[in-house]
């Protein structure tokens, strides 16, 4: 085994034993895992918001309609959540067997009761559900027919359970509290009732309450309907989820009523409600136009994640090199090593050994990521991004490139310092310079082939990060070629310069040299130790 490889091997084996390495390896899945877990837990554990509605519309029609609609929507979503669109049932029989299967899987008898309502529906109704299911909105008619039974089944849940089981549905997030259950009579004095509701909000029994008023004396311009107004009262007005959700439903109901008042046909009404939007399309490399896939949308942002990981990896791994070099220097092991190997062999060996350490680390990340995609049921678009070979290959390739460049800088810094403290001082400007790609990350990902992105790309120390950042673009082939050449040149120059500095710096003691002196060594290297330093005799 050549001496360079022996040095590399030792570095590798030693680094595998350090805590830093294992923290680096385990941190990634732990952080990602914790992130997924916490976000899910948070979504689930967010308290169900209790709200009351003080509805002074004629016969409280608005709040009734809103309640039905929200239930209807929840059921639609609930049914839709079972299975992907492609294997959704097409006949009543299929629908029932799918429901049976889902019921068995859930194993919760209370939820099962809801399924039973659907299982008991006649074929006609089921067929309507299936037909409507494509856009996720079950037909109101069918739903209203079965509403009493459904509500009955749902009433078996207490509020807390409801929140857990139906976390993703509005009924899991928000709970309407009936005024009667608060001992209030909506027919009583308005001001007194509201005062009591305010107390409930203050005491935390209610998150908020809505007040709907309908002024029969004032006509709404154009429709001739009584004028509606609404208020939302809460101690927490920053959390607008509940208000927005309720308002959304209310707007839908009110709009439909207006349409009814104008005696428009269903088609006319729909035409009125239709939005106008621009469909996002993209141009392929062959010049054709195509739809933007969900994968691509996710893919556009994915490079940011990769850049961030790349940055962490490059930085922590080249930091290892710095620490090791300073350790060898301050321990004076360097002299023994240099009595056996040349400075060049020593430096190359160290860089290679730590490169292997780094590759092991990011290799494990890649494995974790691929395993994670299998284990956690991520949305399809994300898993396709994670396992996208272009990203993975770029990640590994640009890691090596970025590492080589910064390894050269840090090994040079390490070689002129006698203690970690000195090294950290010298590191500060390097860190500042290194921050730029992280700061520019969001900007570049939005405009991967823009002028600023391109300019940054051709600053050699940023090239690996920027090219990773732009992978969503992706940049044209010639840029890949050009930057690869640039990177190789940079690495060559950087390692060569580091070699010169290392050769001189590594045996120096005393105070670290000034930057000017160091640059001087590049042009005209002293044969050994140098002026100004109190080299030992």
């Amino acid at each position, binding site marked *: 085994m050549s001496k360079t490889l022996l040095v590399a091997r030792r570095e590798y084996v030693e680094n595998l*034993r350090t805590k830093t390495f294992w923290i680096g390896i385990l941190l990634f899945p732990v952080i990602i895992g914790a992130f997924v877990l916490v976000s899910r837990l948070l979504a689930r554990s967010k308290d169900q918001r209790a709200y009351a509605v003080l509805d002074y519309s004629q016969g409280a029609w608005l709040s009734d309609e809103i309640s039905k609609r929200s239930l209807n929507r929840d059921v639609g979503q609930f049914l839709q959540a079972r299975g992907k669109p492609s294997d959704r049932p097409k006949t009543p029989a299929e629908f029932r067997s799918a429901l049976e299967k889902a019921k068995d899987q859930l194993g919760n008898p209370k939820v099962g009761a809801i399924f039973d309502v659907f299982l008991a529906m006649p074929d006609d109704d089921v067929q309507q559900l299936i037909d409507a299911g494509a856009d996720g909105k079950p037909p109101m008619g069918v739903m209203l027919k079965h509403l009493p039974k459904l509500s009955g089944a749902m009433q078996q849940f207490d509020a807390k359970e409801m929140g857990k089981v139906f976390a993703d549905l509005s009924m899991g997030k928000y709970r309407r509290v009936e005024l009667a259950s608060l001992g209030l009579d909506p027919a009583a004095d308005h001001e007194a009732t509201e005062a009591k509701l305010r107390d409930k909000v203050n005491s935390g029994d209610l998150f908020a309450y809505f007040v709907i008023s309908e002024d029969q004396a004032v006509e709404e311009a154009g429709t001739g309907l009584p004028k509606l107004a609404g208020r939302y009262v809460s101690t927490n007005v920053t959390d607008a989820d509940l208000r927005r959700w309720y308002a959304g439903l209310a707007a839908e109901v009110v709009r439909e009523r207006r349409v009814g008042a104008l005696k428009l046909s269903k088609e006319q009404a729909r035409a009125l409600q239709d939005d106008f939007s621009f469909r996002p399309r993209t141009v392929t490399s062959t010049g054709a136009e195509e739809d933007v896939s969900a994968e691509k949308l996710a893919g556009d942002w994915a490079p940011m994640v990769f850049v961030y990981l790349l940055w962490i990896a490059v930085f922590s791994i080249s930091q290892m090199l710095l620490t090791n070099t300073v350790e060898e220097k301050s321990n004076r092991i360097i*002299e023994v090593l*240099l*009595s056996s190997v040349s400075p060049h062999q020593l430096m190359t060996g160290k860089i290679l050994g730590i490169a292997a350490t780094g590759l092991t680390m990011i290799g494990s990340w890649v494995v974790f990521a691929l395993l994670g995609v299998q284990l956690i049921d991520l949305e399809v678009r994300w898993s396709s991004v994670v396992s996208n070979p272009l990203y993975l290959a770029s990640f590994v390739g640009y890691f090596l490139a970025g590492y080589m460049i910064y390894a050269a800088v840090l090994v040079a810094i390490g070689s002129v310092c006698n203690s970690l403290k000195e090294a950290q001082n010298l590191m500060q400007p390097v860190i500042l310079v290194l921050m730029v790609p992280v700061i520019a990350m969001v900007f570049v990902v939005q405009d991967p082939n823009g002028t600023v992105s391109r300019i940054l790309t051709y600053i050699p120390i940023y090239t690996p990060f920027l090219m990773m950042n732009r992978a969503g673009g992706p940049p044209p082939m010639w840029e890949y070629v050009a930057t690869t050449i640039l990177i190789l040149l940079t690495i060559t120059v950087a390692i060569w310069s580091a070699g010169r500095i290392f050769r001189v710096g590594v045996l120096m003691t005393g105070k670290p040299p000034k930057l000017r002196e160091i640059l001087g060594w590049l042009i005209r290297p002293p044969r050994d130790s140098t002026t100004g330093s109190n080299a030992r*005799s």
Partner: protein
Amino acid sequence: MLDSVTKRFGKHTAVDRLSLRIPTGSIYGFLGPNGAGKTTTIRMVMSIFYPDEGRITVLGRPNSESIKDRLGFLPEEKGLYKKMRAAEIVAYFGTLKGLDRATAKRRAYDLLERFGLGDWVDKRCEVLSKGMGQKVQLLGSIIHDPELVILDEPFSGLDPVNMELMRDTILDIKRQGRTVIFSTHVMQQAQDICDYIVLINKGQKVLDGRVADIRATGDFGIQIDYDGDSEVLRSLPGVRRLNDSGKHAEIFLERGVDPQDILRALVGKLRIQRFDIREPSLHEIFVRTVGGKTDE
């Protein structure tokens, strides 16, 4: 082996036109006060530094990377990888010198066992005491049976037991026909084990040669071991120089003074345990040559 070698650091000339021949199979001492250029010279022999002028030939070859495997080196400032285990680090140094890993490992265990570190082979270096660490490093420098072993201040910081062990090791290497160079500023050590010495001061050679030849100056001194008040020695008549270390003294007399008179003068005033007449010690020669010019 060294031919008019000069090494400068900036304006400071650390080694000035130094020429030396170190006979194969001998123990060669580099003596000199601190800052005399011993370590720099050693580093040049190890081709860690390169001379600015002059030529160095080691083991019959111009100095180069190719003979590094045949040299063993123990630097003055000792250091080990804190996290590596004792046997590993010795074996690692061995492999760097060209041993294959199996051999290096076997020898590392043997050596550590032989040097009384059998219980420590698998301990990390950070838990070793200073003396143990030094032993480990010494083993690392001799594991590959080098033809030339260079030890920079090998005795510093060792307790008497380990000092003896170090001395035995040096003698053992010599017995195998290999060469040892070591530097020291403690003359007694050099006097005890060196065949040849060179005395360096301010980068220049002051004197070199066989220890026996150097001491055979014809100027004899009185060596005494005593117990009592050393003021008595200072008040002796006819004394040219006195090296007094409290229990032991070396006395050089003026021309024509009879050592017997000195003995007579001391009897009754001091308890004399030993009294003999012999050639001057290296210490005396060192002090005479370098004089008060050192910063020691």
